[in-house]
């Protein structure tokens, strides 16, 4: 699906909680087959942007298209990995069962998961190195293992677009390596992967495209073109002095004129 049609096209999107805009007039194009990081300070609306793409929050204005159509018609094309702490890990269920839940969307109403779904789930668990934990209670997992289970649950959806909310937040080194390998595997097979990310040091290393968000979209595009001191300053405002000291965009070229600042 690596065509000229973008995987996700966000147009004039404004989301507000009451009268407080969380996202202001976002225009964002995510081309197919890229690995894009979404970065921005706390409260920048990164999670809200994901939820708006998935139709989980209602926009005050604007629209989102997934491969040219509204999300409601394209549910099967999109897989979602929410933040790990968004669910109750004491819920009485097994690791395998959580991964099988990824197939529920494809099954639709009423149809029960069967042997086929369990096999797909086991395959996905093997891909994230968690096959030995299939029958564990989910509450017994470490944070990194929980994140890998969530990733496996997204993998069984066999989608075209993967939206992941902070999958690398607070995980161990093994999990980080596993997740990165899978992100690259997904991109290699033409999938589009969008990741909310918090570590500026690793942006240039991990992603080929980046969107800098702080209520408004500051810039988006290939990392080499848009990830630099000027856009970071525009995104992070007062925090930039400390950021410049750490030289986050070291592999990016020097700030250049004509950056797309919306």
């Amino acid at each position, binding site marked *: 699906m690596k065509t000229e049609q973008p995987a996700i096209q966000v147009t004039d999107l404004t989301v507000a909680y009451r009268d407080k805009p969380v996202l202001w007039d976002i225009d964002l194009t995510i081309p197919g087959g890229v690995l894009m990081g979404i970065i921005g300070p706390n409260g920048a609306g990164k999670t809200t942007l994901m*939820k708006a793409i998935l139709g989980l929050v209602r926009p005050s204005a604007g629209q989102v298209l997934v491969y040219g159509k509204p999300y409601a018609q394209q*549910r099967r094309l999109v897989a979602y990995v*929410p933040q790990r702490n*968004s*669910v*109750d890990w004491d*819920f009485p*269920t097994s690791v395998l069962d959580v991964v099988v839940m990824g197939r*529920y969307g494809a099954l639709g109403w009423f149809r029960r998961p069967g042997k086929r779904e369990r096999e797909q789930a086991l395959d996905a668990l093997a891909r994230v190195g968690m096959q030995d934990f299939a029958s564990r209670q989910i509450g017994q997992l470490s944070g990194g293992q929980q994140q890998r289970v969530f990733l496996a649950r997204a993998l069984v959806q066999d989608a075209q677009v993967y939206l992941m909310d902070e999958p690398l937040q607070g995980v161990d080194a093994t999990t980080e390596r596993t997740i990165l390998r899978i992100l690259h595997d997904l991109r290699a097979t033409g999938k589009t992967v969008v990741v909310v990310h918090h570590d500026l040091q690793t942006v240039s290393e991990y992603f080929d495209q980046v969107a800098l968000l702080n209520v408004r979209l500051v810039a988006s595009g290939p990392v080499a073109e848009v990830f630099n001191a000027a856009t970071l300053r525009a995104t992070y405002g007062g925090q930039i002095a400390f950021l410049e000291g750490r030289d986050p965009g070291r592999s990016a070229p020097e700030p250049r004129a004509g950056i797309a600042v919306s």
Partner: protein
Amino acid sequence: MELFTEIILIAIVTAVACALPGVFLVLRRMAMISDAITHTVLLGIVLAFFVVRDITSPVLVVAAAGAGVATVVLTELLSRSNRVREDAAIGLVFPLLFSIAVILIAQYAGRIHLDVDAVLLGELAFAPLDRFEFAGNDLGPRSLWLMSGILMVSLALLITFYKELKLATFDAALAAAFGFAPAALHYGLMSVVSLTAVGAFNAVGSVLVVALMVAPPAAAYLLTDRLPHMLALSALFGALAAILGCWVAFALNASIAGAMAVMTGLIFCLAWMFAPQRGLLAQVVWRVRQRWEFAQAMLAVHLLHHQATVQAVVECQAAHLSEHLNWPPAFTEQVVRRAEQRGLLVQQNGMLTLTDQGRRFVATILGGDEL
């Protein structure tokens, strides 16, 4: 059927009907909403009674279920306004609706058998007196039919929407992203809870309904980590509380509803204390074992650090250990004995030496890469 059998049957069916939706209430952390619903259904019953003037009309059941759902909606409206927290919202909504119902009964319905005591506590012993008759034949107690019907509806919905309900309870966002309408499922569940509360409070009263909806699932939750098992155990505990409660009530000539509620509490207490992994006893045993385990680990690390050094003679002397580790001598002795029994160390002329197994033990504790 004998009276005794009929009462027990009504109790069992009621308990199971309450325990099943109760599982989802407990998992959704909404147990207290059942308290609100069981009270406000009364308003629905009273209002419907004024319209149809017939205490046995099925309209009453529907109206009561409607009042239950209205309670949930009002509570959510209040808490969503961000001016009141959810628990306070429940505390605001249901006494208001309930007290309106109480006033209406006292003012206008005093003649009929809607009295407040019966609503709060119910009287299972009288339930078989209200017969269901069809074409002149006695088909058994009306509340047995009513509760069996409600149980069947509840079971059918649970089986049909099991997958969707499970996902919406565990991860509502994913359920919404898949298009499973978690809000609709939520109100569907609340309708079932309301319907069950109406049917049940006729027989057992609203206070006991809460006990039957919360205690069996809470006990089951401590004993299993699979949802189907939790549902089955919850139903089983409900039925068990019903049987034991009836039995105790008959033996002591006490209130059946009260005895059943006590039994649900007792079952929960037993699970809370003796559950294999999450029970109090298991936790205490685990903590004690951890304490010995950790003491042995400290001892083994100490020995490893010193056994190849010149101070070994002093540091690894069984007699001097208490001093070095600053442990009470009796405790040190215990730890050494336990470690010896496990084969972690050997004692020769009062000198302690780690075995190979002891070295591996230390290696796993220190994470391997530090050795």
